[in-house]
């Protein structure tokens, strides 16, 4: 295996921001950890996010991906380590706190309020107002106009901004949430498994918006368990397993196959095949898993 892991020291000290050419990252985590009582949800995670780069966080269920985002998004606070925004050490106490620092999160399940019209969702929490004092009212026409414009700029062609957002497809809803974050001046965009519940075509649409957001100069954190979605759009890859970092790679140092192999964990696949066989599992399934084991063994050069 020839994937070259990024040394943590190199990452935090020597790597330079591609736009400003300074060693300051838009967002950086150094040895961040989180405990829930006696359960260690996350330990010693180091990563960096820069302008115009996509950092992918990969891991299986329970790997600590959600905990990681919740810390960055201000829903939870980390217990150890350092979180820096533009070189300044921070600890967010609320989602509002993180938003004010330019960190916007698009959640897989709770991105929007389904019964509310699209434009109300788009401006939720940051409504435009006119007038003053107790007579301050929302500038409805302007908000509708901007919603339509911004969505069109992201390439989302919407029918009617007055319709409840619950009527949109899952992919479209993700895109509205992404467009919203971009419009409100997010510097860092966190996407929590945006493609998890989507079909192939819809996933492609969302991946395209991720690249659009990147091209607009945002630092993107893309959380997923699918290396096939992560590899084409990612610049860096952080692999998590059981709350620990098991690798951090630059795109030039790793191939899709290696990434998949790292993710899948060859040993676990072999174990699964064995178990299925013992249980008298369907022959085809067992063969398929065994085939995958062989493939993983080939790419990593190990035998299981």
């Amino acid at each position, binding site marked *: 295996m020839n994937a070259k892991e990024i040394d943590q020291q190199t990452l935090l000290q020597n790597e330079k921001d591609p736009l400003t050419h300074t060693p300051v990252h838009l967002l950086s985590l150094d040895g961040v950890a989180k405990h829930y009582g006696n359960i260690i949800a996350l330990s010693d995670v180091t990563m960096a996010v820069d302008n115009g780069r996509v950092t992918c966080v990969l891991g299986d269920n329970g790997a600590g991906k959600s905990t990681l985002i919740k810390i960055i*998004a201000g*829903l939870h606070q980390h217990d150890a380590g350092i979180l820096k925004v533009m070189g300044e050490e921070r600890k967010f106490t609320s*989602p*509002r706190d993180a*938003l004010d620092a330019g960190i916007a*999160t698009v*959640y897989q399940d*709770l*991105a*929007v*309020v*389904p*019964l*509310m019209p699209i434009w*109300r969702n788009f*401006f*939720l*929490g*940051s*409504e435009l*107002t006119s007038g003053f004092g107790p007579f*301050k*009212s*929302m500038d*409805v026409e302007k908000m509708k106009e901007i919603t339509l414009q911004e969505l069109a700029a992201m390439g989302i062609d919407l*029918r*009617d901004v007055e319709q*409840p957002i619950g*009527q949109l497809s899952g992919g479209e809803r993700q895109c509205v949430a992404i467009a919203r974050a971009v419009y409100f001046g997010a510097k860092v965009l966190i996407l929590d498994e945006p493609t998890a519940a989507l079909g192939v075509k819809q996933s492609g649409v969302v991946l395209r918006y991720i690249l659009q957001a990147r091209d607009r100069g945002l630092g993107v954190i893309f959380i997923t368990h699918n290396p096939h979605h992560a590899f084409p759009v990612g610049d860096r890859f952080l692999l998590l397993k059981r709350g620990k970092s098991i690798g951090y790679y630059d795109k030039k140092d790793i191939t899709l196959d290696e990434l998949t192999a790292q993710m899948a964990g060859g040993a676990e696949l072999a174990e699964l095949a064995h178990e299925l066989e013992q249980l008298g599992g369907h022959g085809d399934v067992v063969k398929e898993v065994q085939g995958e084991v062989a493939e993983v063994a080939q790419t990593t050069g190990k035998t299981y």
Partner: protein
Amino acid sequence: MTITQTKPKPAAPDERVAKRSLFQKLLGRPEVGALVGAIVLFVFFALVSPTFTQPNALATILYGSSTIGIMAVGVSLLMIGGEFDLSTGVAVISSALTASMFSWYFSTNVWVGVALALVVSLSIGFINGWILMKTKLPSFIVTLATFLMLTGLNLGLTRLIGGSVSSPSIAAMDGFASARAVFASSVSIGGVEVKITVFIWFALVAVATWVLMRTRVGNWIFAVGGDANAARAVGVPVKATKIGLFMAVGFCGWILGMHNLFAFDTVQSGEGVGNEFLYIIAAVIGGCLLTGGYGSAIGGAIGAFIFGMANKGIVYAQWNPDWFKFFLGLMLLLATIVNLIVKRRAELK
């Protein structure tokens, strides 16, 4: 010489948007089911009883509706915000008792008692909301507890202080006349006496509608009721919004409490029990979704009007008022079913 003007072509409408007629747009509104119900009921009583459509009878119906409607405004907003309040009925009496007992026993101008009652009403709302936000218990449980506690406090304190179940008469006290003029007078319109609560009710509905549809707070109310987690994630102050809604209910309770006090001059401490359901029924008939996130203040007003019509209509039709509760239950069932059908149909189109 003729100048041919080429008119700019109107932008081609999106082919995916089927033209919705005004009728269909109307069907998409939350209060439309209630409106249909109200019209049907009105026509029904107008046919059954000739006196029903007389101006005086209408003024009486509107007054009856307003005593429910004022509370229904707050309760509707709260329901859109995703919460219940079962303590509203007795909180109204608590407010009235506070005003009358305080000004009587401390011999102050009644306006001092009125001001104190406002503080108490807002505090009850605040405490309801605060406990709810702190404990994250369902609002059904929290407000059921405050309902029981307030019922006990109303009776217990009134008897402890005054030795009777009703508050002493404050008719002879300073400020009573002016307070009655504000909370319980009548306005003559074309020879018909219309109670002032009707106007207060309309004003509250107008303000609540404006807040819901045109202000940031309105957007937040829909959001916290529709999906509190999503709202919190985009920076909506969920706790403050919900506590504020409970306080708005408290404010409505204060107005109604003051009306109850100054329409007479004493308050019965055991009253109010069961009224909370009338307010909730008005909101539900008016198309507010029990689970939150959908509804309107106008809907709650129409719900209250249906209630007022049924209440007085039975009297005008010279039926036994015993039947009223049966009618109310039937109305609730029919209205919610109509709401459901209308909403489904509107969403399909």
